[in-house]
């Protein structure tokens, strides 16, 4: 089962309140997305930690229902 862009966005927003989330459907097939996440919660975290926070928000679906999510994170001032 693939995830819709809306589902991905909602899951990330729920875990990281106030985050700016931009989802792009890269291939138009509902299976390859890029996500840009800007959150104040990333402050002081390494890139690995920031990406893990987003993966955690997707609670296990990353690598499963969600095959390809290219992720970019940055700290919100």
């Amino acid at each position: 089962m693939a995830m819709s862009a809306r589902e991905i966005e909602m899951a990330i927003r729920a875990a990281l309140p106030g985050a700016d989330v931009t989802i792009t459907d890269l291939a138009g097939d509902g299976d390859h997305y890029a996500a840009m996440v800007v959150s104040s919660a990333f402050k002081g975290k390494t890139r690995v930690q920031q990406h893990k926070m987003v993966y955690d928000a997707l609670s296990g679906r990353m690598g499963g229902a969600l095959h390809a999510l290219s992720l970019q994170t940055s700290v919100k001032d």
Partner: protein
Amino acid sequence: MTANPAHDRIAKDVAENDVLLFMKGTPVFPQCGFSAMTVQILSELGVKFKAVDVLKDPEIRSGIKEFSNWPTIPQLYVKGEFVGGCDIIKEMFEQGELEPFLKDKGIAVSE
């Protein structure tokens, strides 16, 4: 020793190889765009690395995700430290951080 033999094999590989890439396919024939991208970046920097093809070994394929608590492949380890997946490596490369990072770790890169 841990309860999972795959984890022991991974830990040994990580300890024995300064630059270790868990990927889908081989550096010459990558089976996934993200793996291909990561190989390309390492090659561009002239970094010698050992690659583990997780598609050849289902135990490693699932074990590595638990080992590093990271859900996707590829995964790059440098001197025993998990550095990131494709997105992070790409970002570090584009920001010019990857080469100094590797040098700091004592990894040879081509000038």
